């Protein structure tokens, strides 16, 4: 088997070795229940609290404003279900992650009024669009920071200001942004932000929610009162520690990684530009490293399978539990024709990728396209 080249970091990242090591160590050594009185429990308790402090410092918020959860989907659920009641109005976008989008549709069936804003042709939601949808019963605005399929960045700061001026709560699913860019929560008018460890080289199954002090939510899971009563259940100590470590590493090497990924992306685009491949890079204001590309006349699904059989992982469309996929929904939402959307794939570059890997990716794509293009 050839070396696996992984260009799907927007789906998930490989765990940093340093993170894996401390998670492994904590799993063996720190088995005490953080709620127990004895020293073993206290040790675990302190690991959780130190992790909370570390994450809060990096995101520039108060320690008590970080709640640990099982990941991004749960954090999104806590906010939407915790805030919205029958008769309330939610403003969100039509290209959110399914944990917001499908939940919003579900809430809509239960009497919550929902406005789904479609992204503009450039792949973003504008603050103006959000503003024009505000009604007297608007209770929550939930707009993702970076779209997972396109990598486009939404004007979260402006949207936060609008929410604040209108005394509306503001949530952002920030999972694609955190760890890749600096998120300073003190500089944004924001009430909730979703954190997910496996998007920044941390463990899977652990995440967090920034919940501004003073806001009281109904918990999804009742029980022993952990996480300030908002999320019961014995803490996932090793993963929480791993998440804090992963964020710390990402934060320390932020500039270095950004520089590297920008260079790699430019190199790849340069190779495409100088080839005879007909392509288009979708979306305008993008986070570097997440590229949604249309290769005209080449079905994305076929390109993915062919690349995979040669050891290269990319992404196509909206995945579902059976492992099949439909045309990328975000592209349809921003007005792309279905036949073009079907010819679009996502290539996302992580910090472990090297220039040679990009060259291999490009060459393999060229070979496949010359064989299968209609």
């Amino acid at each position, binding site marked *: 088997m050839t070396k696996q080249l992984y260009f799907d970091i927007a789906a998930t990242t490989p765990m940093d070795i340093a993170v894996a090591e401390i998670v492994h160590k904590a799993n063996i050594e720190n088995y005490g229940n953080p709620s127990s009185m004895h020293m073993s429990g206290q040790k675990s308790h302190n690991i959780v609290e130190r992790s909370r402090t570390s994450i809060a410092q990096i995101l520039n918020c108060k320690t008590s404003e970080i709640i640990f959860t099982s990941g991004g989907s749960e954090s999104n659920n806590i906010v939407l279900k915790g805030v919205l009641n029958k008769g309330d109005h939610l403003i969100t976008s039509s290209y959110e992650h399914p944990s917001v989008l499908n939940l919003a549709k579900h809430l809509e069936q239960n009497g919550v009024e929902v406005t789904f804003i479609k992204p503009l042709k450039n792949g973003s939601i504008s603050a103006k669009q959000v503003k024009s949808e505000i009604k007297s019963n608007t209770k929550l605005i939930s707009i993702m920071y970076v779209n997972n399929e396109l990598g486009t960045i939404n004007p979260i700061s402006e949207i936060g200001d609008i929410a604040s001026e209108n005394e509306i709560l503001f949530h952002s699913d920030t999972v694609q942004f955190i760890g890749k860019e600096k998120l300073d929560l003190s500089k944004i008018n924001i009430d909730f932000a979703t954190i997910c460890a496996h998007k920044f080289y941390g463990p899977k199954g652990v995440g967090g929610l920034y919940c501004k002090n003073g806001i009281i939510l109904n918990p999804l899971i009742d029980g022993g009162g952990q996480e300030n009563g908002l999320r019961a259940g014995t803490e996932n100590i090793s993963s929480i520690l791993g998440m804090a470590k992963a964020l710390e590493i990402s934060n320390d090497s932020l500039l270095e990684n950004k520089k590297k990924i920008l260079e790699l992306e430019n190199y790849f685009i340069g190779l495409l530009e100088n080839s005879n491949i007909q392509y288009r890079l979708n979306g305008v204001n993008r986070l570097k490293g997440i590229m949604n590309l249309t290769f005209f006349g080449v079905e994305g699904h*076929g390109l993915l399978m062919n690349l*995979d*059989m040669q050891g290269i992982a990319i992404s196509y469309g909206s995945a579902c539990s*059976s*492992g*099949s996929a439909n045309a990328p929904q975000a592209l349809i939402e921003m007005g792309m024709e279905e036949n073009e959307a079907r010819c679009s794939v996502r290539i996302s570059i992580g910090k472990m990728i090297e220039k040679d890997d990009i060259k291999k990716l490009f060459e393999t794509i060229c070979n496949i396209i010359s064989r299968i293009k209609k």
Partner: protein
Amino acid sequence: MKEKVLVAMSGGVDSSVTLLRIIEMGYEAIGITMKLWEYKNFGGNNLQENNCCAVSSINKAKLVCERMGVPHYTIDFTGSFKENVVDNFVDEYLSGRTPNPCVRCNSFIKWDTFIEQAEILGAKYIATGHYAQIDEKNGDYFIKQGADERKDQSYVLWGIPKETLSKTILPLGALTKEEVRDIAREHKLETAEEPESMEICFIADNNYKRFINEYAPDKVSKIKNGKTLDEEGKKLGNNDGYINYTVGQRRGIGLTNPNPLYVKEINPKNNSIIVGEKNSLLKDICKVKELNWLIETPDFPYETHCQIRYNGRKAEGTISIEENEYVVNFKDPQLAITPGQSIVFYNNKTLCGGGIIKLYE
């Protein structure tokens, strides 16, 4: 370099052994599962064990592929399946006919799609787990019945495009079902004890009446209680609408008669069914539409053996052309020749072709 073969994987025991055989034959295999249906949308249970297209079946296909070191992909064809197979299935019942969705799926979706995917993946052949065989003579390819007579599935293959035969491998054709299970057990395949799949893959509980009611409630609600007539047109009673009956059906007619009564004809236009005693259902003629030949198109009249239902017996018949339509005259009268079902033609064990039965009026 090994030739690549795309193996159609449903997650059952047959397709798993197909994969095994293809690898043993020296090919490089790629497993593909076509996702054709979303059960939860129409009263089915996605988690039910023996539904192909259910997540558990797709998972099993993946496990078997991984065990054999073969890549596996799932491709979503729910849109095309709905349009070409399920919509037609419901429309046929609403028109008083009894469709055969497996035939339609093979004819219009499966083969074309798998061949297309094979080309995309650089594979020369496709392989499926049907119990039928492909033979070659002087560069000409044709389908023969499977060696296991009880399992033979050639009946559902009459509609596949002839030009795909040279690209198709059916590795189970020479085996019996028991042999296939034994091979699966011997290799400890995850699917070795999978139950037989359902009659109609997209109707999880096999209750087509419930399905049509949920799928096309607007159309079904227009079908009121209908009349049950005898062969002379005399009303014998009422029924709950023609859609609930199939030609040849005996149970559930709700009439008492010294001899059992069977549904002889279904007439959606005036929402009636005509019933009669068994002998009245015997006919020696029908029309055939949508003919497809898997041998060179013969000269007519053409004497052949005809099979008018899955697992039915073959009967001698002659195909001829009358006023631009194909007509089959059977040597002996046949019971309950059912419009909408497939009539399949054989010459000994060779599948010559087939078509869809129409009433001869």
